[in-house]
């Protein structure tokens, strides 16, 4: 207990008697954590975009004219359990027409051509899959099922190139994101590690003297580790406040009518308080862990006497 109190006291003294250096260290760590925070938001945005794109990839299965609505619904029930199917949606001829009219409402010529003829639009089932990469397999399985004679065509053949392109884009996003994450993480680690090493380097004589007086390695090390953790905590708090400030500023700059906090958070459910808490937790844990580990490794080389 005595020892723990002393270690805490030493950490506290170290922090304040090295005033400027501590301030610089906190400043640098704040910046890095801010970067981490912005990066995490970017990451979440990209993942959101990826899942949005994946959701857009679907296949319509069209049916022969003679298939009744009951036939199709029965078929839908049957293929519901096919593995890889995420969602099935029945679109009747009427609904298909309505959709078409809505999408082409400004093209009067087309509207005239279609007129009131529902039979122009075949009924279909829209298939969404859990993994866009598996779309061919899923459609293949559906085509092999019992009542497949009802199927006249699928949109897969027609949309193959678009699907392929979307998938490629998604893969690019995911890989790019991963590579960027790794690079940024390494940079963040290096910067914090070097900053803490610098603060410890200036006190290597102190470590040496403690060692000569007969202090145990852990007695010497703990104050530095606690100091490192403390840098991490302060850095995380400041970075968190700055992150919120930056988002607020961004929203204010972009114009309140269009990009209000509410529309941002309501429209896509991404930019809400939960996200900010998440970012804070990530910054906090990152700061503490990196601070402590950096201190541990930085003191180690001076303890080898």
């Amino acid at each position, binding site marked *: 207990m005595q020892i723990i109190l002393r270690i805490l006291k030493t950490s506290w003294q170290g922090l304040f008697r090295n005033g400027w250096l501590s301030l610089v260290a906190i400043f640098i760590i704040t910046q890095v954590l801010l970067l981490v925070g912005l990066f995490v938001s970017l990451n979440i945005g990209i993942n959101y975009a990826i899942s949005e794109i994946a959701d857009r990839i679907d296949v319509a299965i069209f049916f022969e004219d003679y298939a009744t609505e009951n036939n199709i619904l029965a078929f839908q029930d049957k293929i519901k359990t096919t593995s890889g199917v995420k969602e099935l949606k029945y679109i009747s001829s009427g609904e298909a027409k309505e959709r078409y009219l809505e999408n082409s409402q400004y093209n009067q010529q087309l509207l005239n051509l279609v007129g009131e003829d529902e039979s122009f639009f075949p009924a279909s089932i829209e298939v969404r899959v859990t993994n866009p990469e598996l779309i061919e397999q899923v459609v293949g399985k559906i085509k092999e099922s019992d009542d497949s004679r009802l199927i006249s065509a699928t949109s897969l053949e027609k949309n193959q190139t678009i699907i392929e392109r979307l998938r490629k884009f998604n893969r690019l996003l995911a890989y790019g994101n991963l590579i960027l994450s790794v690079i940024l993480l390494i940079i963040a680690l290096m910067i914090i590690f070097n900053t803490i090493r610098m603060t410890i380097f200036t006190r290597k004589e102190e470590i040496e*003297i403690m060692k000569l007086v*007969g202090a145990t390695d852990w007695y010497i090390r703990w104050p530095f580790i606690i100091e490192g953790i403390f840098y991490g905590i302060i850095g995380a708090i400041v970075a968190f406040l700055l992150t919120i400030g930056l988002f607020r500023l961004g929203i204010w700059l972009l114009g309140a009518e269009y990009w209000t906090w509410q529309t941002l958070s309501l429209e896509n459910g991404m930019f809400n308080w939960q996200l900010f808490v998440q970012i804070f937790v990530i910054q906090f844990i990152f700061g503490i862990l990196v601070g402590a580990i950096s201190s541990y490794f930085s003191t180690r080389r001076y303890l080898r006497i």
Partner: protein
Amino acid sequence: MIQFNRVTKHYGTVKALDGASFSIQPKEFISLVGSSGAGKSTIIQLLTCKEYPTFGQVTIDGKDIHLLKKSYLPYYRRQIGVVYQDFKLLQNKTVFENVAFALEVTGVPEEEIRTETAKMLQLVGLKSKANNFPHELSGGEAQRVAIARALVLHPRLLIADEPTGNLDPHNAWEITQLLLKINRLGTTVILATHNREIVDAIGKRVISMKDGKIISDKRYGKYCLS
């Protein structure tokens, strides 16, 4: 108490110490003399376990100190006090804290630290400067703080590595007197120096070294190097 048994230390191809053998009895005062590079510092670094011998053994009370477990080293080091030419005080701690610090690392209760530290500062005559920082002290005063710090754990052995190297003759003599006083109080002292006047004035055992070898070991010796 301390036994050097044909100890040799190589740094690469340089022989810093070449088959040195000698023993030290409890409560002895030994002057270790020789010019720079003669091997004095190597002997001290071997004694503090900062370095390990290439050949031979260094034993204290019959135990080879270089076979001690790494984790036991801090406890071993608490039994020997060391004073350096450059004092090695912590600049951001006061005189009192510098001395108390040696006790703090051992987990002694706060009350005892206060009384022991005060006692040591009294012994070295620095009670009035307890709250000053090292940069406010003269060289002689700083060295006395270092001695107080080395003694506060009541070591059996006090090693002084050129303690007067940075001091003027007057202060050097005062420090020497202090070391003799500490020796009278019962602590074994090893004084490494190349200061002829001091060694001659002390008039106790002198071990002379040259090029890593012990060239003379006299009970009441004088500085005999040219």
